[in-house]
């Protein structure tokens, strides 16, 4: 059932997955289930973007699996006509790890949210990232608990007034990008639910990357945290606060630019800076510290938000290494024989 390879990694994310014969369309990936998110939820836009992106990959539909945890976003697999596993709260990366490690011929996706991935499932997320199993993790970050009706989440801003924090939340939020980089992730990106073109461009790179790709998607929950990312969508300000990162290009918005400062990076007025001083994005840098510095630029408020791929580096994927060990063991000593195994060690015969 499984094939294995010793090929390279980056740009080979799909190399082991069988290709579809005919052309696919969006319809091929829609399931017959009625979609049940709140009207206006950002999840709709992400679903539509993913459904219209998948045909582009040209993979056999039956070799694609969506695994999710618990939360609004985790209903996602039901709406795609691929294999799907809606699991339990926080555990999707663990379940997907077992699936991907034993089946390198599958394109395995994890759909998770900020509560699912960063609170109850935080441990599984960081370990999946350091291991680099071949997974595409889409982290829908709406900075709130939706399914349990509006408690603050591990990405909510300090002082958030919610049902469970009437006087304001006290704990400092995670920055998912910083966390992922700290967890040795090889591919880390951020995109936005409403920007289909950007979202799909990021997915394209994420799927090409063999190993764990973490894509944080800012997702609007219009019921419990409406407008959390409004600044990035508002035509008045978005072009000035969105710092688009593209490999090999200067990192800047219409009005701002990222430059090196004495102790790291800083954002300056674009007009007042020489273009040659603007930091040119290198997503493939092995050292993650610059990517980490980029992830800190928008702390704490949404004044200038880097969007795009923070980091994309080459590293063997866990599933590939695991299968290589199996292959090596077989090539060194031959395929295991049960009879020999049971009779191994000291035996004696009684007549």
């Amino acid at each position, binding site marked *: *059932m*499984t094939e294995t390879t010793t090929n390279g990694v980056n740009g080979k994310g799909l190399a082991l997955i*069988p290709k579809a014969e005919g052309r696919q369309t969006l319809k091929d990936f829609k*399931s017959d289930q009625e979609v049940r998110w709140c009207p206006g939820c950002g999840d709709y836009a992400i679903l539509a973007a993913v459904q219209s992106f998948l045909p582009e990959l040209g993979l*056999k*539909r*039956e*070799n*694609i*699996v969506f*695994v999710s945890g618990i939360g609004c976003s985790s209903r996602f*697999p*039901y709406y795609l*006509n*691929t*294999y*799907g*596993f*809606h*699991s*339990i709260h926080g*555990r999707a990366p*663990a*379940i997907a*790890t*077992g*699936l*991907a*490690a*034993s*089946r390198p*011929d*599958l394109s395995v996706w994890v759909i998770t949210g900020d509560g699912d991935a960063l609170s109850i499932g935080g*441990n*599984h997320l960081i*370990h999946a990232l350091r291991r680099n199993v071949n997974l595409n993790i889409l982290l829908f970050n709406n900075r709130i608990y939706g399914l349990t009706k509006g408690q603050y989440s591990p990405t909510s801003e300090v002082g958030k007034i919610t049902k469970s924090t009437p006087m304001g939340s006290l704990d400092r939020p995670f920055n998912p990008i910083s966390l992922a980089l700290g967890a040795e992730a090889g591919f880390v990106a951020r995109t936005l639910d409403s920007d289909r073109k950007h979202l799909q461009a990021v997915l394209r790179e994420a799927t090409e990357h063999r190993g764990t790709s973490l894509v944080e998607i800012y997702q609007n929950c219009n019921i419990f945290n409406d407008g959390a990312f409004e600044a990035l969508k508002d035509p008045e300000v978005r072009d000035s606060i969105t710092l688009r990162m593209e490999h090999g290009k200067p990192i800047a918005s219409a009005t701002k630019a990222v430059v090196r400062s004495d102790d790291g990076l800083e954002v300056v007025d674009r007009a007042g800076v020489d273009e040659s001083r603007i930091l040119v994005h290198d997503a493939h840098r092995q050292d993650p510290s610059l990517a980490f510095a980029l992830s800190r630029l928008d702390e704490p408020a949404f004044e200038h938000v880097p969007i795009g791929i923070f980091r994309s580096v080459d590293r063997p994927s866990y599933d590939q290494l*695991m*299968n290589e*060990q*199996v292959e*090596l*063991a*077989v090539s*060194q*000593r*031959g*395929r*295991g024989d*049960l*009879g020999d*195994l*049971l*009779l191994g*060690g*000291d*035996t*004696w*015969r*009684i*007549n």
Partner: protein
Amino acid sequence: MTKQVQQLDRVIIRFAGDSGDGMQLTGDRFTAETAEFGNDLSTLPNFPAEIRAPAGTLPGVSSFQLHFADHDILTPGDAPNVLVAMNPAALKANLADLPRGADIIVNTDEFTTRNLAKVGYTGNPLADESLSEWRVHPVPLTSLTVKALEDFDISKKDAERAKNMFALGLLSWLYHRPTEATIRFLEAKFAKKPDIAKANVAAFNAGWNFGETTESFSVSYEIKPAKLPAGVYRNISGNQALAYGLIAASVQSKLPLFLGSYPITPASDILHELSKHKRFGVRTFQAEDEIAGVGAALGAAFGGALGVTTTSGPGIILKGETVGLAVATELPLLVIDVQRAGPSTGMPTKTEQTDLLMAMFGRNGESPVPIVAPATPSDCFAAAIEAARIALKYRTPVMLLSDGYLANGSEPWKVPAIEDLPDISVAFATEPNGDDGSYQPFKRDPETLARPWAVPGTAGLEHRIGGIEKADGSGNISYDPGNHDLMVRLRQAKIDGIDVPDLTVDDPDGDARVLVIGWGSTYGPIAAALRRIRKAGGKVAQAHLRHLNPFPKNIGEVLRAYDKVLLPEINLGQLAMLLRARFLIDIISYNRVRGLPFKAEELAGVIQDVIDSD
């Protein structure tokens, strides 16, 4: 000097020393020699959870008990005939278990004022009358070893370390054990340090020669090989047998084995063993925690692997939610619980049968899970295959309840012929099964009630499963009250309908009025106790449960056929509670929860009391 040779039918030896003295290794080697010689045997390692408790203290004592005989035996023995005590702590910790007249071989070099004080001896027990009940053989093991290794180019510390091999050599002489395999073993073990290898071999030989020449031992003993059924034998521990059983289940099901596990005492050796066998296509995944271990195993099962997770009680609790997910999604999954003393951390290296009710009920909702329990260390092999058979055939998580006693204990195992192993292969779904040409993931096999297993990569059968209640047949999300009630009953009926062999009863004359029933690792002690009773003319029947959920179909009938039913358990009556509830039979419980297996003599007394009472 010619020495007398005395014939014995069985001997129980306990090697005891400090954790750093290599007692487990010494015991293992003596066991291997004994197995090779052809005696039947049973072992009981007993060690502290601490890797190196402070040297010379009571908590630091590690021991290894071996019972061997010229006939088939069932337990590691109640009380040792011979204690090898490497230091005062080992003597003090084990003395209470020694019957009057037993031999004590004691390392006198360690009986210094300081070491004696460490364990609370005010005087030297070797110098006063306190050991007069026993036959004490004082041997300066350490200094004899150091002296024997004078000419070797090794440190004094390394020379002293070899004292366990000196002791092994002495005991090997005393009981006429074959020595070649131990020498080969030492050469292989220290292949990278040839000086150490030679020194250990020399210490071993010196111990043997010391026995031959010293006057402290005037008699040596012969225990003839046991007459066991013909076949090829090897010695095997429970954890090793379990690992081999899992590999066999993978071969016999033609499914790749995927183990997701997190290290925990006393289950880790299964992970260690399986990780050595990658050439069987075995993938072992050391997860970040217990939850990820079972999660990964379930994910692999979704992909068509034989998914297994191994742990002990504290891990089962953490895995509970995922096992529930496996119940809901009806995927095959093996959950191995090597039980240990609880609650909480409890006593990690000590044995117990206290997880039965957790295995049975420890999940939210109506969440039935089949339970299988091995009876002896080598039986872990067959139990693993049986658990896999049920999981695959019925698409369900299965709990296998081993325990610390089975896991670390060992016994000779008649190696089964491969052609005698059951074929447990199952077919994946390959075609749509709905009337309308759709794939219905919850359309069941009418006979087994198992749902079809369609693995990713199968065209046309794309489907979604999950923990939310599903509609019968289509598998779509359903909150319909009637559907939920139906699904709850279907899941229960599927488990209740598992084909479990009938319970057999051992009642030689067929006229016993008392039945002793047990489950899991109490098999050996119960059977040994019954032998004593029967030898003395008592009548008693024995039945032992391999399947705890569902129970064998005839169990009610068996229980009702006796005037009295006695159930010894190493818990406070967990199986008794289930049997009482299910069959309304007034089970007589016998419970001890000391972290140790029952003793045959103890059980024989209990059984006799039940027989005698009216």
